[in-house]
């Protein structure tokens, strides 16, 4: 290599090795959204990376201050749009803590079931998208097939495919529909085999393995220092899962494994997610087995909408209740709360300060993708520009959540 350069170099002139400043994004397929990386390149080596974010900033936190608590649910949908049920759940839990109420058991099961479906949906995308970034296109097409099944189930439950807004403070919007059970049982039966398909496709793909194994290693200490959470942290050998360590809803009744890897490279992060999907299927099956009959909303007319829509049309009290809740919302007692859940991307926390009115005084979203993106600075051995793509893909940031 050097010899060729020596031969081609004009006599007497020094080789020009200027550093190049390269803009990767904001519109680039492998930045997974509108992320702009300003890269300082020395040849093909990345010397410095400076992520510029905010292209998708919608001011969720500012907007929330002018919305009632029920109106905020659609805003939370649009954070991590791959898994809205998790975001809804995190927000609902925070408000419920402030109110000092708990959703009925059946509602808790429904929420957990949907959150786990959402986790599969989110993980599925990265299972296919990371290999696609690295040139293995096939897997993406297969994962889309299974995501379609989840979308259909979501549509069946909520009427919406993406922005479900299904949670409410104190429960969920509706009960599970008829005909839902056979559909999700079918999915649970089919899906583990499909995971095996992806593994066979990708674990024998030498290009994929070469470009992920041993690339982009983040050590456990660095990962904690950089605030990574979720599968990104567990892939670095840190055994922490909020579902197990601070169980919310009915997670303490469920039996599941927390997947950890020790390598901390891109492959480990990918692998963690694939294995987590298996655990999610187990959780969904347990939810289906254990789910009791009962209410799906708290029996509190000042907080929950009337269950029976027919009554709204013919009963004055129900009409007033419905109108009051829609127009003015409900009052949340003064106080502040931080409540975190294990979202598919990591620790999703809502910090809410209430001043005793129907609108939050301050709502802060601790968005996991926002923090996980800082993992780019903790990578020790990805020096090539091409490795940067692998690292970025394996960190799995959703830009809508990064930019809030």
């Amino acid at each position, binding site marked *: 290599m050097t010899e060729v350069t020596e031969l081609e170099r004009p006599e007497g002139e020094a080789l020009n090795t200027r550093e190049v400043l390269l803009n990767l994004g904001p519109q680039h397929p492998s930045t997974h959204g509108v992320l702009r990386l300003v890269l300082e390149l020395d040849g093909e080596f990345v010397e410095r990376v400076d992520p510029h974010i905010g292209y998708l900033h919608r001011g969720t936190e500012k907007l929330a201050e002018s919305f009632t608590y029920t109106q905020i649910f659609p805003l939370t949908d649009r954070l991590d749009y791959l898994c809205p049920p998790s975001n809804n759940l995190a927000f609902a839990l925070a408000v419920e803590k402030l109110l000092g109420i708990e959703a009925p058991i059946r509602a808790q099961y429904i929420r957990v079931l949907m959150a786990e479906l959402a986790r599969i949906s989110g993980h599925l995308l990265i299972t296919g998208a990371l290999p696609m970034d690295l040139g293995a296109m096939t897997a993406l097409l297969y994962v889309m097939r299974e995501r379609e099944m989840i979308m259909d189930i979501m549509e069946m439950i909520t009427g919406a495919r993406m922005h479900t807004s299904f949670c409410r403070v104190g429960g969920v919007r509706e009960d599970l529909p008829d005909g839902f059970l056979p559909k999700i049982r079918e999915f649970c039966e089919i899906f583990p085999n499909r995971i095996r398909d992806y593994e066979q496709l990708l674990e024998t793909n030498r290009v994929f393995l070469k470009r992920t194994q041993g690339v982009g290693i983040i050590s456990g200490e660095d990962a904690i220092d950089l*605030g990574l959470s979720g599968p990104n942290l567990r892939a670095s050998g840190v055994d922490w899962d909020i579902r197990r360590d601070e169980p919310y809803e009915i997670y303490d009744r469920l039996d599941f494994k927390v997947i950890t890897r020790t390598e901390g490279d891109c492959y480990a992060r990918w692998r963690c997610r694939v294995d987590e999907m298996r655990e999610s299927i187990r959780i969904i099956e347990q939810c289906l087995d254990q789910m009791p009959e009962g209410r799906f909303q708290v029996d509190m007319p000042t907080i929950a909408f009337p269950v029976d829509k027919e009554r709204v049309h013919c009963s004055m009290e129900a009409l007033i209740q419905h109108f009051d809740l829609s127009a003015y919302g409900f009052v949340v007692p003064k106080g502040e709360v*931080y409540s975190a859940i294990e979202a598919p991307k990591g620790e999703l926390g809502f910090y809410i300060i209430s001043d005793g009115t129907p609108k939050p005084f301050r709502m*802060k979203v601790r968005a996991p993708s926002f923090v996980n993106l800082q993992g780019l600075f903790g990578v020790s051995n990805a020096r090539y520009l091409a490795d940067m793509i692998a690292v970025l893909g394996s960190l799995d940031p959703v830009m809508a959540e990064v930019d809030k």
Partner: protein
Amino acid sequence: MSVRPPLDRAPILERFGAAIEDLGPVHGIDVFAVPPEQIVEFCRFLKEHPALRFNFLSDICGVDHYPETPRFEAVYHLYSLANKWRVRIKCRLGDPPQVASVTGVWRTANWHEREAWDMYGIRFEGHPDLRRIYMWEGFEGFPQRKDFPLRGYRDKLNPFGAEGPPPTQPDLVTRDIPEGSQLTPEPRK
């Protein structure tokens, strides 16, 4: 979250005692009010004390308590991976808000502090790279302050914004828009 053992607050109170205010557990999280000049020392103590080990910084956020004084607040959420405790540190700041950066304690504080600077104008002293993170360079004002209008200020690009102080750097904020373009203000129906 009743399964968690309560926080062992003895070492904290022993070390800082009168300087901080112990606000007790609130919804499962122990809250301490710390004066801004002690924030780095307090955070470092929580992180490095062998019985506490708050090694994970969940979040830093700014709060605007307008029109109260002191007006601003920086709120830190810490987690101890070893003991599974959570702590909230509240730090009231005057106007203009200023507090020492904790980037030396946790690297993850970097972007959180940049966000608080961008949205509330809290200046973190000693931060290595305190730039705006969401808004563009040259943006005027701090959008999440309570006195910043929800729709922003009216200018050429934002015909529906509130009347307000004219931008001090017009060449940065407004761009050339052809005459008669659709962006001229039109009353909303």
